[in-house]
């Protein structure tokens, strides 16, 4: 029983750390987005709260926290309250299988602990897909329960969009799964160690450099679909300020609104993590081994790994913002056509080609 | 069908029926009256599993019926020469199909073949009544159809049961040789009864007949009365008696009672009719009562009388219906009240009508007298009371027929009602005169007919009186094992039916 409680305690600590990290990132993102957007649009972004506005997230948080909780008349109260929580939870629990750092095991009182991944389950990627597929519910329910036509339309659009693009996400990663032969994110990441040419986006065989198994197309599909999954511009049709006010969370305010927003950012982080793990080698550095190893600090190699991982994730997050700064919103039919008629065939073709190359040149 | 014009159709039908007649007539002389065996047999494998054969043959019972059939049919075609004006091609086709099936019924020696012919005539007859019939034809047609079909469905079951209990064969002769447990016989008899009694029709099942006869076109009525009704009686004679002797004996009282009821009831009903066709239809019920009565007294005279009466009834009633048809063509009414006093405008017609009526009521010297007399003789040996009651039917027949004749032929016509009716034209004469000749021939000299049927009837009686104990053993050995049959083991028979 002590072992169980110990394990629970460790898991709890891990979860806590993880959640706070993610929430920190989210907080940073809320600021970073506004800053970067501002800069890209020759503006400054928030400047008032704290030096250069760095305390803005805090201020936002406080404001939202203390804001009156408005429930629209005719709304379905339970659902209305449930939706943001659901969204939030779904966004956060996906992180359980993300390996932030190398696959080290620690032994504490006979208890093996993997410090950088909460749960190294053998179907990690499927778990993430499963979790991601739940994400639609929060949006859909939020939209429905608000008793507002804008919200409902936003919710419905989001349902269609999320279902459509989930498929592409799922199909895009199949190539990676074929290459790695595993569903565990940890193993997938490990399979990409040894330099950037082993990353699946490049896709060289372990003994070569030539990109025979390149997943660049899958990567692009994944990235685009990921943007759509998280309802980000250019695919933010569910929100679509100009037509739907604010889409499914038109009627939300206060903490519930904050939940939605932070869930959106958290899922961005999640997509970035997954993209980094699947295509950009996760915690692996773009060169064999680590610098810390070369200089004899093997024990601290994990720092380098984590830095690399964080770097990749932040790169993706930056790309998200960058895209938002650059691109206009798609029209709804364009969105659907793009998903079904462009991305889906590409993803399928990628699977076939990868299968053939893997069959001909096994790893 | 449009490439055959109406008149061509008539001629085709006439030629075909006459050709049939020409082919069939020699049988009369080629037939060997000394034997009870089937003659002119055909035996061709038809369906292999179960073994069903295209098996035909004639004996003394079927010969007269076949000849009567092929004889009546040309008359039917002639009778409908001008009467049928719509869809003539279809009509003639149906008549020919009917002839095929009716002849088939009388000559089939395979039970399934028999059943196929038996059932196949339903549709053409249904159409004959329903398409070319009178005002109430729809009701009559469907009633006829359902009555006969329902009865014959049970016949099929009985056939199948007989197949399994009779040694896995559908051969009628072989089945007639077989012996069956008594209780099984009872059930099968009832099934047969359902089919044949409806066709005859016997008393409780006769209600389709007046409707059908009245609504059918002339040819249809003739076919119905002359031939179709005989098929029921033929079925009793061919199947019920030889195959199910015990049951037949057991049911004799019932059958006799029903027959007598039919005789009296039919006659009474006829008395009440104002419609000529209905009158004749009910007279048919009455006359067919004599046939079944003769059959089920189970003796030589009775059965021979019954067979003879079948032929007689075919001829006489056919003639009567033809007469009604002729008058209907002229006055467009079948009511007695509308056809009064035809003797003066139509003397030939009146004469013939009187002859047919007299034949129908059994005047000595006409054919029906011989038949009915034989039946009554046969009945007498079985029960005197029955004979007495049945004789009452003859008297009633005389009543209604003479009454009819009196009014129709000799009545005083209402003036407005007596146009210049043409007398019979040659075609009509050609339809009626042969029948008259037959009436007198059989009435005066029935012996050729009797002699031809004698052996077969004797044989039937003999096969009945064979001491048939209900065996439990199964006479299946030696017959062809059909592919369909799983095992050689006989099925357990408990109480004959399950």
């Amino acid at each position: 029983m002590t072992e169980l409680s110990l394990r629970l305690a460790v898991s709890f600590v891990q979860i806590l750390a993880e959640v706070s990290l993610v929430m920190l990132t989210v907080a940073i993102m809320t600021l970073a987005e506004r800053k970067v957007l501002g800069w890209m649009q020759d503006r400054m972004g928030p400047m008032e709260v704290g030096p250069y506005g760095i305390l803005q997230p805090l201020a936002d948080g406080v404001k939202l926290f203390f804001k009156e909780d408005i429930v629209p008349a005719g709304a379905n109260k339970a659902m209305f309250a449930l939706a943001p929580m659901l969204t939030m939870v779904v966004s956060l629990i996906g992180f359980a299988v993300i390996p932030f750092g190398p696959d080290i095991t620690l032994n504490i009182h006979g208890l093996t602990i993997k410090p950088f991944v909460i749960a190294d389950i053998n179907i990690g990627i499927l778990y993430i897909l499963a979790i991601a597929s739940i994400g639609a519910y929060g949006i859909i329910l939020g939209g429905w329960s608000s008793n507002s036509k804008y919200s409902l339309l936003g919710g419905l659009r989001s349902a269609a969009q999320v279902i459509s693009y989930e498929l592409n996400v799922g199909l895009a990663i199949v190539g990676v799964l074929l290459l790695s032969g595993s569903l565990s994110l940890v193993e997938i990441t490990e399979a990409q160690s040894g330099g950037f040419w082993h990353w699946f986006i490049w896709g060289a065989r372990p003994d070569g450099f030539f990109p025979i198994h390149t997943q660049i197309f899958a990567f692009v599909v994944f990235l685009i679909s990921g943007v759509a999954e998280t309802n980000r511009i250019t695919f933010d049709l569910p929100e679509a300020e100009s037509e739907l006010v604010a889409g499914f969370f038109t009627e939300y305010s206060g903490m519930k609104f904050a939940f939605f927003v932070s869930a959106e950012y958290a899922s961005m982080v999640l997509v970035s993590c997954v993209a980094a793990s699947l295509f950009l080698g996760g915690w692996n550095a773009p060169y064999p081994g680590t610098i810390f190893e070369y200089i004899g600090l093997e024990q601290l190699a994990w720092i380098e790994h984590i830095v690399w991982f964080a770097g990749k994730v932040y790169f993706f997050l930056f790309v998200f913002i960058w895209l938002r700064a650059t691109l206009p919103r798609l029209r709804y039919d364009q969105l659907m056509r793009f998903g079904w008629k462009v991305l889906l065939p590409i993803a399928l073709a990628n699977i076939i080609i990868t299968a053939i190359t893997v069959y001909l040149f096994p790893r | 069908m449009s490439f055959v014009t109406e008149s061509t159709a008539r001629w085709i039908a006439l030629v075909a029926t006459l050709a049939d007649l020409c082919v069939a007539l020699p049988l009369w002389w080629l037939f060997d009256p000394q034997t009870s065996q089937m003659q002119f047999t055909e035996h061709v494998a038809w369906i292999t599993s179960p073994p069903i054969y295209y098996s035909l043959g004639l004996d003394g019972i079927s010969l007269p019926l076949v000849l009567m059939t092929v004889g009546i049919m040309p008359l039917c075609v002639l009778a409908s020469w001008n009467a049928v004006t719509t869809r003539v091609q279809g009509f003639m086709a149906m008549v020919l199909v009917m002839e095929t099936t009716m002849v088939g019924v009388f000559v089939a020696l395979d039970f399934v073949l028999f059943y196929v012919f038996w059932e196949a005539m339903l549709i053409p007859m249904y159409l004959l009544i329903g398409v070319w019939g009178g005002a109430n034809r729809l009701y009559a047609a469907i009633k006829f159809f359902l009555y006969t079909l329902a009865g014959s469905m049970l016949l099929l079951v009985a056939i199948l049961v007989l197949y399994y209990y009779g040694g896995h064969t559908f051969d009628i002769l072989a089945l007639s040789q077989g012996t069956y447990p008594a209780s099984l016989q009872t059930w099968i008899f009832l099934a047969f009864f359902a089919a044949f009694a409806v066709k005859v029709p016997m008393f409780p099942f006769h209600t389709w007949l007046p409707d059908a006869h009245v609504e059918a076109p002339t040819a249809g009525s003739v076919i119905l009365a002359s031939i179709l009704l005989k098929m029921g009686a033929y079925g009793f004679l061919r199947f019920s008696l030889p195959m199910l002797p015990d049951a037949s004996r057991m049911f004799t009282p019932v059958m006799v009672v029903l027959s007598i009821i039919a005789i009296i009831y039919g006659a009474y009903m006829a008395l009440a009719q104002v419609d000529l066709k209905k009158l004749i239809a009910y007279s048919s019920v009455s006359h067919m009562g004599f046939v079944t009565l003769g059959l089920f007294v189970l003796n030589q005279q009775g059965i021979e009388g019954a067979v003879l009466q079948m032929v007689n009834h075919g001829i006489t009633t056919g003639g009567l219906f033809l007469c009604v048809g002729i008058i209907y063509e002229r006055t467009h009414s079948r009511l007695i009240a509308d056809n009064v006093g035809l003797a003066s405008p139509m003397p030939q017609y009146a004469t013939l009508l009187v002859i047919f009526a007299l034949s129908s009521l059994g005047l000595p010297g006409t054919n029906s007298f011989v038949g009915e007399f034989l039946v009554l003789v046969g009945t007498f040996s079985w029960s005197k009371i029955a004979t007495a009651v049945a004789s009452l039917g003859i008297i009633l027949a005389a009543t209604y027929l003479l009454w009819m004749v009196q009014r129709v032929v000799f009545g005083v016509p209402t003036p407005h009602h007596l146009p210049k009716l043409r007398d019979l034209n040659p075609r009509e004469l050609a339809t009626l005169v042969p029948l008259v000749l037959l009436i007198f021939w059989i009435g005066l000299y029935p012996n050729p007919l009797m002699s031809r049927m004698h052996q077969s009837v004797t044989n039937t009686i003999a096969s009945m009186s064979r001491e048939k104990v209900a065996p439990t053993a199964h006479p299946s050995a030696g017959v062809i094992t059909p592919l369909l049959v799983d095992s050689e083991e006989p099925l357990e028979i408990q109480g004959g039916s399950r």
Partner: protein
Amino acid sequence: MEQVFFFYFAVVIAATSVLVVALRNPIYSTLALLIMFFHVAGLYVTLHAEFLAAVQIIVYAGAILVLYLFVVMLLNLKQDVRYHRQWPMAAAVGVILVIEAVVLTAMKGWTTPAVAAGTETAIAGAGNTEAIGDVLYTTYLFPFEVASVILLVAMIGAIILAKKDIGEREA
């Protein structure tokens, strides 16, 4: 521990399945079903079928049920929910059947069936994704192909049925 999990899942599954049928608002029914799907997935995990658990959520919760919700909302169904008039009868029949099934099953228990004789390769430690894949693409290749054709049919069929202007192609 196992028992606790099982009973938790079982109770929730049973309760939510009743709710699916009993709730009057289709949305609530759908959500009850959603909860049930999760617990069924949990049950699969306790049965060492993790792969199926994930697939259950992806397919059922992620695709099928979202479609339901989508339709329910698209058609904006909120109110018109009634029971059949014969519901007491149906309920009675149902209860009897439940009792019967439970009694029968519990009474007989589950004697060891004669499966070992089967030609199926008995795979130790079922639940292995690889094992599933292996069997799926070798032994059950044919049903797999049939299933793919089913999906094809469903896809085209749904388009034909739901697309608005398909009839106008016929001039």
